């Protein structure tokens, strides 16, 4: 449903997208993850016809974004980083306004507004000016406005930025119930983990990794062993012990007194760690890597020189 091949875009000579490829199958919620400035928003703006690209091709719902922008616009909904709704108008007036601009008749626009207010739990507050809405209500109205034509493809650019956890899970719930093809950009790894069927990690304008959340996590080499020691003085001994058990350098977090290594045999690793460290162990756990770790591993190499992350990855693969 969404296809991008070798998209390039520069702003004043600085590349924002540098050979961006993407393939989003129908019905999939697809997460686009990346640090600030990686090119997520540029990609979304090109795919939604808001921005012209310099090179490459992109098709959305079967239409070329450069040559058939009108058809693309009729097939998509866009929820941008700001809740792009009118503050002074009521929720109902907003939906009617956008409905008219989607070329619905006044009667159709009114009926569609009612349906969407109902569906997004805004029926009671539909007549209130949007400036009295909570952040979560605004986002739901924004989402409703992008669904006026029930588009087959939906673009959500950081849809929960600035929302409290409760509003965030409400928006997530709404997105899950859509049943449309969704391209979602986010900085929240948890959001991608919760919502996305597949994820592409984008860095410096190109996709550096792609797969299901589970696949991406397994790239970091399966499970990780975390040991929290009782005293800070024991950290170094614990790090040495875990490194020798795992056969790779352990990561130490001084503030939380935690030492962490990737392991392949969970039970053997726990047993070995307990027998070597004994009394010093306050807490011990084996867990899957978090998406955060995958993300940092994939995108942090340039900034940090990537010593720890890189060696870990090489050990893991």
């Amino acid at each position, binding site marked *: 449903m969404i296809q991008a091949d070798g998209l390039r875009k520069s702003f004043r000579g600085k590349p924002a997208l540098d050979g961006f490829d993407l393939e989003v199958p129908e019905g999939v919620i697809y997460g686009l993850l990346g640090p600030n400035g990686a090119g997520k928003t540029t990609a979304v*703006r090109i795919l*939604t*016809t*808001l*921005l*012209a690209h310099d090179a490459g091709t992109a098709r959305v719902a079967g239409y070329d974004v450069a040559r058939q922008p*009108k058809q693309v*616009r*009729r097939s*998509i909904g*866009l929820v*941008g*980083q*700001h*809740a*792009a*709704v*009118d*503050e*002074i*108008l*009521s929720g109902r*007036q907003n939906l009617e*306004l*956008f409905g*008219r*601009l*989607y*070329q619905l008749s006044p009667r159709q626009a009114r009926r569609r507004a009612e349906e969407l207010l109902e569906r997004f739990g805004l029926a009671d507050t539909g007549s209130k*000016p949007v400036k009295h809405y909570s952040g979560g209500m605004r986002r739901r109205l924004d989402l409703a*406005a992008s669904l006026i034509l029930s588009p087959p493809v939906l673009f959500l650019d950081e849809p929960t930025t600035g929302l409290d956890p409760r509003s965030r899970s409400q928006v997530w719930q709404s997105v899950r119930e859509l049943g449309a093809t969704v391209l979602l950009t986010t900085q929240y790894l948890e959001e991608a983990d919760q919502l996305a069927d597949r994820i592409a990690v984008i860095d410096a304008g190109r996709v550096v990794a792609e797969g299901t959340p589970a696949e991406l996590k397994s790239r970091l080499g399966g499970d990780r062993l975390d040991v929290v020691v009782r005293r800070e003085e024991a950290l170094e001994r614990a790090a040495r012990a875990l490194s020798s058990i795992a056969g790779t350098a352990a990561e130490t977090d001084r503030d939380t007194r935690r030492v962490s290594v990737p392991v392949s045999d969970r039970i053997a690793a726990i047993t070995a760690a307990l027998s070597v460290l004994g009394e010093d162990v306050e807490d011990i756990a084996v867990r899957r890597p978090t998406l955060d770790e995958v993300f940092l591993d994939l995108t942090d190499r340039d900034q940090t020189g990537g010593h720890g992350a890189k060696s870990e990855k090489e050990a893991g693969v």
Partner: protein
Amino acid sequence: MTALADGWTVARRDLLHWVAQPIGAVFGLIFPVFITLVFGYLFGGAVAVPPGADYFAFLMPGMYGMTMLFGLSATMIAVTTDLDRGVMDRFRSLPMASSGVLLGRCIADMLQSAVLLVLMLGCGLAVGWRPEGGLAGAAAAVGLLLLLRFALLWAGIYLGLVVREQGALLAVQTLEFPVGFLSNAFVAPGTMPGWLGALAEWNPMSSTVAAVRELFGNPSWGGESWVAQHAVLMAVVWPVALAAVFFPLSVRAFRRLGR
């Protein structure tokens, strides 16, 4: 056709704003009324007017011009706000005529300015100003004022689309005053130092205000220069020239949002 329908839909949004917040619709009156009162009652006594003439008869046409001039920043605010809030992006991602976005701004702002102008004319009547040039003259005067507003509208759209620095809006709002003062709106350019007076006479504001005085049959500051002698002609030429510059610039800037 779609462009016109979409433009009207976009403009209707502003009209709904006025219904929801009537104060917002007449917000543009605060400054002109305030300045009318300050100049009319505080400074007016110190302004040299021909014997027997009332300062308000000079001042009000100037204030009508100022009301149009303040529209520049009003348009700029509206455009910038829509850009910042992402409303412009939403419009641009809709299957609507893209010209409808600017057309809607144009319709809404012209309507609002027409309403403000009518209210200002009412204020003028209240402080003793009278139109004495007949109905045709009065209609022509209103037409020229709205023509100036139309030219400033496109300048406002252009600035709103292009100038993205913070504080730019404040700069434009602040500059509206010197532009207004450096014209024949408040005092006769003849009382200014020579070069400054010439500048004031060539200010497009001055042409409109002088033409409006002439058409309303109000007393005028006169002036010997060619531009002062051809006020009505220049009150058409200046706005048309400004619009001819800023309309294409605005359209180009709007298209450039997608570059």
